Structure formats: C-alpha cells, structure tokens
C-alpha cells in the first residue's frame, strides 16, 4: 500500500534528522573538551552530512545520514599558561565549536523533523478517511 511507503519515506527523514541532532548534541557537549596532553589538539567539531539513495523496495529516494566529517576550521587559541593543556608558549587550543551555529543547526533539524512528523500525521488521516468508507 502506497500510504505505508509514504510513512516509511518520512520515517527515513526522521531517522536522518535524529542522527543530525545527535551529532549536534555531541558538538555542544564537547564545546570545552581540551586536549589530554600539553599542546595537543582538542575536540574537533563534527559535521553531519545527508545522502539521498534510491530505495528499490519503496521505489523512492529516501534519505540517510552520510559520513560524519570533521570540521577543518582552525581551533580557537587562548593564552593560558597555567592550563595543563597549554603548549610551551602557554597557548591553549579550544575546540572549533561555535554554540550559536550549533543552536541554529539544531533549530533547522527540529524544523525538518517536525515537517516529517506532520507528513506522517497527514498520511494517517488519509488512511483513516479510507477506512471511513467502510463505515458508510
């Protein structure tokens, strides 16, 4: 039945957006994770990607979370000689996580997630209408 396929496609969207939220929360949680060794690299921000693939059983293009790539931008450097993670010159590398960007990304993911949820709701209502024919 086509409606079940519709729900399966929307569910793939839900899964992908939930995975995206997971990566975002990982970034926010590690916004202050410094290196374990003096002068080492701290947590590097990770960027979720999406890939579209043709699902042959559904005959539609579903979405999936692609490889999670590292953000290659520079680390923030602060001068803190007393910090255990500081290098010889007293500089500490902080993660390249910008909370503002993460919050914006999270809102975007939330919005897409809700759109998929709405679609499932609409499809369920349509299935209900079909069943209402039986009540006649």
């Amino acid at each position: 039945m086509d409606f079940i396929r519709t729900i399966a496609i929307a569910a793939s969207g839900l899964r992908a957006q939930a995975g995206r939220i997971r990566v975002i929360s990982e970034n926010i949680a590690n916004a202050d994770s410094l290196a374990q060794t003096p002068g080492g690299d701290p947590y590097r921000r990770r960027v979720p990607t999406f890939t579209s693939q043709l699902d042959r059983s559904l005959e539609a293009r579903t979405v999936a979370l692609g490889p999670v790539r590292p953000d290659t931008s520079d680390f923030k450097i602060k001068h803190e000689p007393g910090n255990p993670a500081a290098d010889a010159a007293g500089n500490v590398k902080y993660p390249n996580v910008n909370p503002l960007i993460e919050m914006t990304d999270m809102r975007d993911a939330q919005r897409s997630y809700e759109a998929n949820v709405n679609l499932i709701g609409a499809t369920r209502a349509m299935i209900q209408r079909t069943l209402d024919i039986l009540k006649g």
Partner: protein
Amino acid sequence: MAITDIPIFAMLRTKMQWHQQRQQVLAQNVANADTPHYRPVDLVDPKFQLAAPGPATVQLARTDPGHLAGFTDAGNFSNNPNQYQVRPAGNAVTLEDEMIKVAANQMDYQAATQLYSRSLGLLKMAVGR
C-alpha cells in the same frame, strides 16, 4: 456488473490512487529537505477524458466599437509560477510549500473518499435499504 465498473467509482479510484502516489512523492521531498543537490518533484495533474468538450467560452457582446473586449480567457493569470529557490547547498526544497501541498492533497483525498461513500449510499438507496 462489478461495483468498480461504475464510472463514478472508477473515476474516484483513479483520483484516490493519484493522491496516494502524490503523498509518497511529497514525503520524498520532505525527507530530502536537507540533502545537497536535491530538487523537489511533483506529479502532473490528472486529466480526465471528458466525453463532451467543456463549456463554450462566453464572449461579452460589444454593441459599440468603443466597448472594451473584457477578459474572456482566464489563462492570463497564473497562481503557480513554478518558482523555487536553491539554497547554497544546492537543495531546492521549501518546507512551507511542501506542507501546503500535503494539506491540499489531504483535503482533496478526503473529498474523494467522501464522494465515494456518498455514492455507495446512493447505491444502497437504489436497492431499497
């Protein structure tokens, strides 16, 4: 004669199948709302073959050469310019547009199913129940 051979039921069945398929296509668009380089797709409107041609276009009578011709062709207006914006990632899905399409699809489907059950009611009336 099977119930599905009755023209109204056959037509409604076609319409309902079209809306089912469209719902699937719209779900695909929404699911791929963040996929790079994805362009939204939609179904072509169904066309029912009418036995008789549509109503003849009515012309306004012009009794004086100074009269304006008036609008006889509604085709001048278009409410669906088929425009979309492409975001930097190459994705062109607008969630708002897709949601409006989903709502419209749902309402049209509901209209079809209600017509269907109403037609069934007519049949029941004909057999005297």
